[in-house]
């Protein structure tokens, strides 16, 4: 059929389509209230702090150099560590879950996915608060452990790094499961069967067949968990103590407490750079994955 070689029909029948300029108001809105504010943060990150917290427009790199101060460096490093740990735990929990969903009866799958996604759509503040209720000194976990006789006195669970990581895993686990599900769903079960038939060990099947073939989903899931984790504010604020500050809290602190806007802006841009690096990495991986396997 030669006719299929023509451009897609919606590009031909212009009369049946709406004009491009309909997009303009939305684009103006995003430029004005998104790009301009971001540009402003960028500009201010090179300004100096006034005596009473205002901004002096004197160009300087000092704000970025300040970030090498051990105190800030520690918070940056801590954020990366918490986010990395969260990502790893989400993977360990999320992979079996995604695998089980993808291999469950087809009519059950949408329901199970909905079950995983539903918590994500509920208020993050409320979900984090639920963990405060569980982890408190007189919380359910401590009551349970004392009743069992496992501990003599309540453990200190809340306001610790552990609590922060638990909260982050809880918040972002659904982000890991979804892309993994897509990847496992695409994985041909026959390939796994073949590996079994060739007497591969369970570990070999996992590392040499399942893992490589689901790599795009794994990278996607890890990015989707790492990116929001590293910039999180609510979780460390509510579940972490003063020592579990993360970049998000540092930004808020610099802006609203210390009122050092230039430094806060510099921290914001470092955070944005970390996130953008992760996004670029993800897109590179995604476009490579679009290669030979995609056409199947």
């Amino acid at each position, binding site marked *: 059929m030669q006719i299929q070689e023509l451009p897609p*029909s*919606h590009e031909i*029948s212009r*009369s*049946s*389509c*709406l*004009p491009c300029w*309909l*997009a*303009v*108001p*939305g684009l103006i*809105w*995003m430029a004005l*209230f*998104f790009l*301009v*504010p*971001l540009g*402003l*943060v960028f500009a201010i990150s090179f300004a100096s702090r006034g005596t009473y917290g205002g901004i002096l427009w004197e160009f300087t790199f000092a704000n970025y150099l300040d970030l090498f101060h051990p105190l800030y460096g520690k918070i940056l490093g801590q954020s990366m560590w918490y986010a990395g740990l969260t990502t790893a735990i989400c993977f360990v*929990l*999320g992979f*079996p*879950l995604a695998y*089980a*969903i993808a291999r469950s009866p087809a009519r059950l799958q*949408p329901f199970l996915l*909905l*079950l995983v996604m*539903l*918590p994500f*759509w*509920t*208020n*993050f503040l409320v979900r984090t*608060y*639920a963990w*405060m*209720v569980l982890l408190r000194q*007189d919380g*359910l976990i401590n009551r349970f452990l004392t009743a069992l006789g496992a501990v003599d006195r309540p453990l200190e669970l809340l306001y610790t790094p552990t609590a922060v990581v638990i909260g982050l895993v*809880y918040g972002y*686990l659904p982000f890991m499961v979804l892309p993994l599900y897509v990847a496992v769903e695409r994985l041909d*079960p026959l390939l796994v069967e073949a590996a*079994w038939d060739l007497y591969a060990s369970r570990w070999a099947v996992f590392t040499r067949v399942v893992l490589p073939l689901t790599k795009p989903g794994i990278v996607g899931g890890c990015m989707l968990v790492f*990116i*929001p984790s590293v*910039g999180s*504010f*609510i979780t460390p604020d*509510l579940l972490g103590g003063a020592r579990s500050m993360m*970049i998000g809290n540092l*930004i*808020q602190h610099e*802006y609203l407490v210390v009122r050092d806007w230039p430094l*806060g*802006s510099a921290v914001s841009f470092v955070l*944005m750079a970390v996130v953008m690096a992760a996004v670029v990495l993800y897109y590179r991986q995604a476009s490579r994955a679009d290669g030979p396997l995609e056409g199947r």
Partner: protein
Amino acid sequence: MRRGSASLNAVSTLALLFLYGPIFVLVLYSFNAAHLSMAWSGATLKWYGALLHDEALLTATANSLLIAAVSTLGAVCLGGLLALGMERMPSRRQQAIEGGLVLPLVIPEVMLGVALMLFFVSLAMPLGLMTVILGHIVFNIPLVTIMLRTRLRKLDPALREAAADLGADSWQVFRYVTLPLLRPALWGSILVAFTVSLDDFLVTFFTAGPGATTLPLKVYSMIKSGVTPEINALSALLLVISMGCIGVALHLQRREV
């Protein structure tokens, strides 16, 4: 996978318990009669009753609903037009805009909040309901546009062409063909935008100023200022509302032709 599926199911069951356990406990304890302790001392509805008499809370609820309604309306108008306008563009420009629209969704929300606050302050705009609404429209436009474009791309162009061939002008094609086909996605995106706005904490936190307390800001200050059992009830209500809205939105999305 034939082997190991029992352990696989066990881990998945644990993961689901992990996801729903805390939510369940929270809802359960919102009915607990005890005032301070976690010990169960009978079921009661009194914390829900107390919510109804909390003036500050009712004001916060009204603010939240107003912000969500106005910002949803704004985002659906602007984002809807954006989605329709993008249809006609060369595909390279479409991709560029789509990439740009993902940006507000991936950058840390703290950053969006801070950037908007700086912007409003440097324009000497007083922080309040107005600035919160302007900010919420910013993160809702990409949501609406992406959801509607997913639907638009699936529409059969032949339907629109047929209408045009039958003499419909572009407005009539939109009114009688595109819009009815788009309706489920439109309602879906309205519900999602409304829920996201209702639940938003960070952008609101930075752009609200002292006068415009919303429900999440109120929840935050209640959590920070010490735990009262009322907050369990309030949290349970918020959970039910978000889950309800999203359930309906997903149902509408799935019902698409």
